[in-house]
């Protein structure tokens, strides 16, 4: 399985995990002050950051950077 497919599968999995219907009615507090539903989503933000950090590490679009540095027809550009 190639890297892009694995990244896509993990991304879809994270989309599903965002729904966390199992926490919907849970009014327990984590560390005595944080409702479970809020704590879960705060952790979710950290996991999202970690996920994108890994994506950048393993699937950075180097070929796009090389393409961008190539010469272009100046007649076809913007107004600069």
């Amino acid at each position, binding site marked *: 399985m190639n890297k892009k497919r694995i990244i896509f599968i993990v*991304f879809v999995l*994270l*989309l599903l995990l*965002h*729904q*966390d*219907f199992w*926490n*919907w*009615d*849970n*009014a327990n*507090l984590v560390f*005595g*002050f*944080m*409702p479970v*539903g*809020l704590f879960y*989503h*705060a952790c*979710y*933000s*950290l996991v*999202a*950051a970690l*996920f*994108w*950090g890994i*994506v*950048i590490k393993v699937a*950075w*679009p180097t070929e*796009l*950077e090389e*393409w*961008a*540095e*190539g010469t*272009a027809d*100046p007649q*076809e*550009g*913007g*107004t*600069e």
Partner: protein
Amino acid sequence: MSTVIVIAIYLGLLLSLALFSKRLFRGTSKDYFVASHSIGPFMLLMSVFGTTMTAFALVGSTGKAFGAGIGTYGLMASSSGLIHAACFLLIGIKLWAIGKRYGYVTQIQYFRARFDSKAFGYLLFPILVLLVIPYLLIGIIGAAKTIEGVTKAKGPIPGVFPEWTSNGAIPPWFTGLVICIVVLTYIFAGGSRAAAWANTFQTIVFMVMGVLAFYLISDRLGGVSAAIEQAKDTHKVRTVDGHAGVSQLTFLTYMFIPLSVGMFPHLFQHWLTAKSAKSFKLTVVAHPICIMIVWVPCVLIGIWATGQIPAGTNPSAILAIMVGKLVADPIIVGLVTAGILAAIMSSLDSQFLCLGTMFTNDIVLHDAKKTYTDKQTLFMARGFIVAIVTVIYLISLLLLQQEKQFIFSLAVWSFSGFAALTPLVFAALYWKRATKVGAYACVIAVFGSWVTFFAMSGFGGEFFVFGGVTPAAIMWFIGAGAMIIGSLVSQPPSEKVIAKFF
């Protein structure tokens, strides 16, 4: 009065920073519009985060949590951590490459070239302006309500200016005017470079002040554990119960709204003009963390407020009331209020500047028969910005006369419109078969459905269809469908266009 002095000092510091950045201004229109492609990773992160997190993030999230409870964080913050970064990678980096190779500065320049249609810009520009307006309005309304909240009389304590208004507060029209003038001054001084510097400074300020407000409010409530114990139980879960909570369908379809970052004009401009692709790395990874740092405290303050403030209070005033009521020290109140203003102004500046850039490059200079000097170009951009600011200010005065202003809902309408336009940019970047007809169909269908839903909502209120589906989700599918059908029934793009962009 000390509170007002602290806020005035903050605004003075901001203007000083802008004047300093003016010394680096090279005086050319290119430098004014894109800071000569000199924005590095840290300033890009601060600019992107600062412009994305406006009154919506601080004032709106607190007010929304006061009404709907902890679900507020999942609705916008955690989903944004995943979706925003995906847009930065899938849309942002590809646009950077195209901007770098062909010299595009605005999204209209790119779409005109990609769909080989000059007229497309004239269709898209007014729609983008219209969709940005609610976003700009919430900034001015948020600032006005915040200042009013912290300066008005509280019980036996008189307001700051008892001889000026009945409640002693600084009137909203005055705050709105001052905010507009300050933002205009610093973007006039140094253009995009001043905006980037001011954004960086203001983003740091509002993040630090947000954490400070959280600490001080929790301390006054007896600590974080005591604070949450005083809050209503209905707000500690996401189940719909009484007036709190959100339905599962709403929670699911809110995932479409963060897609808006893919089409925001000012972010598009950042993508096209960033210094290098590597500049994006920090933004992609740190953005979800920055969102968490700002939103978790705000949502908790909103939940705590349910135990302190009567239900039905204007949601736009919750944060200001909590700060004003619980943080007794006027200097600290001033600092926290300055942080809120920082969040608001860091969004307004980029939006104003971007609209001026698009108007000048995409409407006036595009296909212009006359040659304009750099001075004339800058004059036109600034003139358009002043016109837009004036219109926004006047509309905000009308909205401020209403009993309640729903910053969260108004922002969501703006985000929903941009989110529904993302099929346009995805198709432009990744689908060779996407055509001009598809692009026109997509934009017209999205705008038509947005106007319809917006009117059905009563022009800015919270609105759902089919028992809880967000209009953004419906509009996104309408836009995607129009893009696909319009493209498939029309002639494919020319070989020249495909060779250029794929």
